[in-house]
């Protein structure tokens, strides 16, 4: 196979797992012992002089050269019996594990993939088997099967039939989460049937879990089999088993200990080695990032070295020549940065992923990850904080430095009420009564414009929206009037209209406490309205550091200029000509609706249970046209897309593609050759077990294309990837390259419509731009139509001929791009446009002084009720 020059050898995930397994000493020792025991069990009896049933004249002998493990009261050689027992135990346990994992895999995959009633009945069956103590039923069935005791196969069958549940539960769990993976959805959209999806995508991806659980099952099965034999219901004389040997030696522990210890130690050795091998396999297949433990303070190593002098003793934070390196990584993650934050100042730290901005903020809070090696000076108020222990850090954390994390849905404790979390935070400064903490928490939440703060205190985090949760977090940051607030991407996980409110809350928090702020973000546009000073980071270094107006007005470094040029400017959208709309539409939606039902509950009436995820949406999409759908989370844009793609059945209305109603039998399969999809997350939308060649070939295999290899090379060329990519696995590519592969796969069958589901939102800003440019070029070259769905109106505006604005499942406004952006009609479109940050400090601050546009929906002007009833479905 022609492989270009020095590209590193491509490794499948399996090969990588094997390498990790070999690097695990405990697992390798376990494997060696296990293999040795298996070898003894298989070859030992052939080679050993005595048979296991043979009676020698040496009665009750202690271990000697002639009988290494001694003999029993009848004169039988213990080594021969132990080897026979080992053989029996391994044979039975291995068979049990195979039978159980076979049944478990099949039922688990079916249950997880098909779901619904099938899943419910299989899971009830599992529950049922799980209520039965294995030994009892196995003993009864084994005993009842035949008078002379049960054969090894019979015993294996009975045990296997009782042990499959653990595998089935595991496989079902994995399958359930796999089913929601974009790569499975992509296969469905391609037109793959359930059998193909289960065999080609599900089973290969649960295989590692099955291997691990089968290995561990062998251990469990050995313990059960020996237990049964011990009780007299497993292997019976004249044959022997390790359990039987122990049973016979019960009363001889003191007089003839060799008879008791040898089989016991053999069992322990087998099970122990199997368990180490199993755990080793699990770790090798699912390498997890080393878990963090924030309770262990990170102590900077270079404490003994010369103390770095403070350069700015008056600053709140003063970082000098700070470096963070990780073992086995050549480039330092943070490479000698010098930074200070003055009292009351807002410093924005801007950079893409991997720039080292988060590590810098973690260092200020004393939470560098385990294994990181840091050097240089970090001073807070002139005090050196490198090398502080956990207790010493508590003088700073919470009281003098407050932190706001990125994701408000995970930063609050799910099992404590908001009030309890406020209380414990306040108690950091000293004991405080419940009434007092409630009073202060209510005040703070009212400041954050949270409605009805008193009752919110008794709620749990999951009962609130993301925006409110983040405002609760900000309110907690204000408690001790800190000198510094660290805000680490505080709005990245939020919708754009919510982002505006949270930024307002942050401003209030800062004004009320007079704190300085370190604002960390990847979005340069956000910085314009927030920061006093900006530091731009790239690959561990600060490339430029300036007051905000100077930075936007006169960027010096090339990287800053590039970032600025990449920031989309909605206020500068070039007015495009209207797309010529004549003839037959490629895709037509007629009154498309989709409802979901909330779980039954006493407090909900029947009609309140209906969620109108998609309500009466209609539009036409012409061949070659791009329609962009924009909406926030919960707007129904994803439901719209899934309904068009056939992943969800509509509750009402029709999807008509190329003149055919897709509800008609076979129409969907036919259409799937002309319709393809690119999902948001390029890490999840490509099956990790397939090479690029296999990934690209899959649509052609389903629809029977010819000259597949030729075509694959051609689409790779179209997405600007080299043909050498064909034999590599997805994990060998960067995020941007993976998205190109996903686009290439979408183009394989020369589709007429490509559905783009947030195609760039998971990518870094600079890569976003490349992918957007690629999509634009492909559209011009190939004349495909795009149905684009995104939360970012700037992305939508750039690619689309027309824009649809969705909220609460309804299409509120639909028009030409220039009209929607330039002269929006619906109040919500205005809100949405107004919330987009402008990358210009002067314009952004002027807009803030002007005030935001009136929000929508309001109690007086609500979202109109959905006219399509969902009750009959």
């Amino acid at each position, binding site marked *: 196979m022609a492989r270009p020059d020095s590209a590193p050898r491509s490794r499948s995930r399996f090969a990588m797992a094997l390498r990790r397994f070999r690097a695990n000493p405990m697992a390798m020792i376990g494997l060696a012992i296990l293999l040795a025991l298996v070898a003894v069990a298989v070859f030992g009896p052939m080679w050993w002089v005595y048979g296991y049933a043979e009676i020698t004249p040496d009665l009750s002998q202690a271990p000697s050269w002639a009988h290494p493990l001694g003999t029993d009261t009848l004169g039988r050689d213990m080594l021969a019996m132990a080897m026979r027992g080992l053989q029996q135990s391994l044979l039975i346990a291995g068979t049990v594990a195979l039978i159980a994992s076979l049944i478990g895999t099949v039922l688990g995959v079916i249950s997880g993939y098909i779901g619904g009633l099938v899943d419910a009945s299989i899971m*009830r069956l599992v529950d*049922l088997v799980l*209520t*039965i*103590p294995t*030994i*009892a*039923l196995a*003993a*009864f069935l084994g*005993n*009842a*099967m035949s008078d002379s005791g049960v054969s090894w196969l019979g015993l294996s069958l009975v045990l296997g039939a009782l042990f499959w549940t653990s595998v089935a539960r595991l496989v079902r769990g994995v399958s359930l989460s796999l089913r929601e993976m974009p790569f499975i959805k992509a296969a469905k959209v391609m037109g793959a049937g359930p059998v193909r999806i289960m065999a080609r995508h599900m089973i290969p991806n649960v295989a590692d879990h099955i291997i691990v659980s089968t290995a561990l099952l062998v*251990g469990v099965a050995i313990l*059960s089999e*020996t*237990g049964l034999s*011990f*009780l007299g*219901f497993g292997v019976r004389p004249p044959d022997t088993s390790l*359990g039987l040997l122990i049973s016979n030696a*019960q009363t001889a*522990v*003191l007089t003839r200990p060799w008879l*008791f210890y040898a089989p*016991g130690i053999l069992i*322990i050795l*087998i*099970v122990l080695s199997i*368990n180490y091998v199993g755990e080793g396999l699990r770790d090798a297949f699912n390498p997890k990032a080393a*878990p*963090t*433990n*924030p*309770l262990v303070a990170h102590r900077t190593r270079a404490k003994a070295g010369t103390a770095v002098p403070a350069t700015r003793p008056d600053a709140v934070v003063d970082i000098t020549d700070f470096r963070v390196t990780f073992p086995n990584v050549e480039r330092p993650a943070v490479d000698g940065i010098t930074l200070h934050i003055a009292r009351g100042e807002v410093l924005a730290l801007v950079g893409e992923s991997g720039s080292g901005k988060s590590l810098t903020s973690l260092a200020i*809070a004393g*939470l560098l990850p385990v294994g990181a090696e840091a050097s240089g000076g970090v001073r807070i108020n002139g005090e050196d904080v490198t090398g502080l222990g956990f*207790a010493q850090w508590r003088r*700073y*954390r*919470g*009281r003098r430095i*407050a*932190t706001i*994390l990125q*994701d408000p849905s*995970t*930063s*609050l*404790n*799910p*099992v*404590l009420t908001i009030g309890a979390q406020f209380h*414990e935070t306040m108690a*950091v400064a000293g004991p405080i009564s419940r009434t007092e903490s409630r009073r202060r928490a209510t005040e703070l939440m009212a400041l954050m414009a949270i409605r009805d703060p008193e009752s919110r205190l008794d709620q*749990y985090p*999951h*009962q609130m929206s993301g925006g409110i949760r983040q405002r609760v977090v900000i309110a907690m940051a204000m408690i001790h009037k800190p000198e510094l607030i660290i805000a680490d991407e505080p709005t990245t996980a939020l919708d754009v209209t919510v982002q505006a409110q949270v930024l307002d809350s942050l401003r209030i928090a800062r004004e009320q406490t007079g704190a300085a702020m370190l604002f960390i973000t990847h979005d340069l546009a956000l910085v314009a309205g927030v920061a006093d000073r900006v530091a731009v980071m790239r690959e561990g270094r600060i490339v430029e550091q300036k007051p905000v107006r100077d930075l936007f007005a006169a960027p010096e470094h090339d990287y800053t200029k590039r970032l600025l040029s990449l920031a989309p400017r909605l206020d500068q959208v070039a007015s495009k000509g209207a797309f010529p709309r004549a003839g037959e539409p490629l895709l037509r939606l007629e009154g498309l609706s989709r409802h979901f039902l909330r*779980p039954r*509950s006493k407090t909900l009436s029947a009609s309140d249970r209906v969620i109108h995820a998609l309500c009466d949406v209609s539009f036409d999409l012409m061949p070659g046209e791009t329609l962009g759908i924009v909406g926030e989370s919960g707007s129904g844009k994803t439901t719209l897309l899934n309904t068009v793609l056939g992943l969800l059945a509509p509750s009402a209305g029709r999807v008509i593609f190329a003149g055919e109603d897709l509800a008609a039998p076979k129409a969907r399969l036919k259409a799937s050759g002309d319709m393809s999809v690119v999902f948001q997350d390029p890490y999840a939308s490509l099956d990790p077990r397939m090479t690029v060649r296999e990934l690209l070939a899959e649509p052609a295999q389903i629809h029977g294309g010819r000259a597949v290899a030729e075509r694959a090379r051609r689409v790779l060329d179209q997405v600007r990837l080299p043909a050498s990519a064909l034999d590599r696995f997805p994990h060998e590519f960067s995020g941007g390259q993976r998205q190109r592969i996903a686009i290439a796969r979408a183009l394989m069958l020369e589709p007429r419509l490509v559905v783009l589901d947030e195609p760039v939102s998971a990518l870094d800003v600079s890569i976003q731009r490349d992918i957007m440019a690629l999509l634009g070029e492909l559209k011009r070259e190939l004349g495909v139509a795009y149905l684009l769905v995104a939360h970012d109106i700037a992305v939508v505006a750039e690619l689309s001929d027309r824009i649809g604005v969705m909220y609460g499942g309804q299409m509120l406004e639909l028009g030409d791009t220039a009209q929607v952006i330039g002269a929006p009609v619906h109040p919500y479109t205005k809100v949405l446009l107004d919330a987009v940050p402008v990358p210009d400090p002067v314009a952004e601050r002027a807009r803030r002084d002007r005030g935001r546009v009136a929000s929508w929906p309001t109690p007086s002007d609500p979202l109109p009720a959905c006219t399509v009833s969902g009750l009959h479905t």
Partner: protein
Amino acid sequence: MLALIGRRLVNSLAILLVSTFVVFTLVALAGDPLGELRDRQPPVPDSVIAAEEARLGLDQPIPVRYLTWLSGVVRGDFGPSVKPNQNIGAELAPRVGVTLRLVTTAIVIATILALIAGTIAALYRNRIADHLISTSAFILIALPSFWLAVLLKQGGIVVNRMANARILFTVGDISVPAPKEFLPLMLDMAGHLILPTIALTMIHFASWSRYQRTAVVESLSSDHVRFAVLRGLSRNRIVGAHVMRPALIPIVTVVALDLPALLSGAVITETVFQWRGMGGFLLESIANRDANAVMAWLLVAAVAVVMFNLLADIVYAFVDPRVRYGQA
């Protein structure tokens, strides 16, 4: 909350009904309780066998037999035994108490030990304490329970012999004759419990402690623990409220799922220590192919498991507000 319990209860009853039917059918199909009688030499007259068949209801089709059995069970009658003159219910009832004593003690102790050991191992991950706990857990998981039980029993005998006094009880669940007064009776029972409980606890505690370790390691690296640290909370508060509480959810499931295994373990432990518990009853019934007796045993076990799962659901709801508010 009450509605939740009610729903679970109905669900549990349904599972019990189906599972007893399936097991009943299996047990009925698996073998002939009269096989031994038929094979007897010299042959037993056909009329005797027919009478025995009628007494045990073997001449009826299985669904009818199940219904008869079920209606009997509801009235507290577990059906005729192969052994004439044996009332299954009366024989089993005191034994259930004996076994439950062992199993509940073992569950409580094993859960507490697992919580402590797992949490310590996780908090000191990859340090000495963790290596010690994890290695012992691995060895304990690999120990066959019967081997450990025999070893403990012999160890007890050695200790008694050396001290020349009965320090550890190695036989039976209670002294014969049992003490009359309350306090000595309790002490006597507790004394007999020591060794079997250790045998049963060790193995399960070990595997549960592994789950607890994983849960705490995961909990430790979660965002809300990081946020709690950044809010300046004390180490005790963080470990108690933010690390441990969410980590209780997985262990509840694991313990509930393991109850049948514990019952199996109890059978072995009781056999070794010669208790008059459910274990001995089961083994004897199996050897006799006494279908109704085995069914009665399985029914008791299944009820225990279902009840315990119900308890786990309730504990769940207490630990996790998301379950309590029906959005998990």
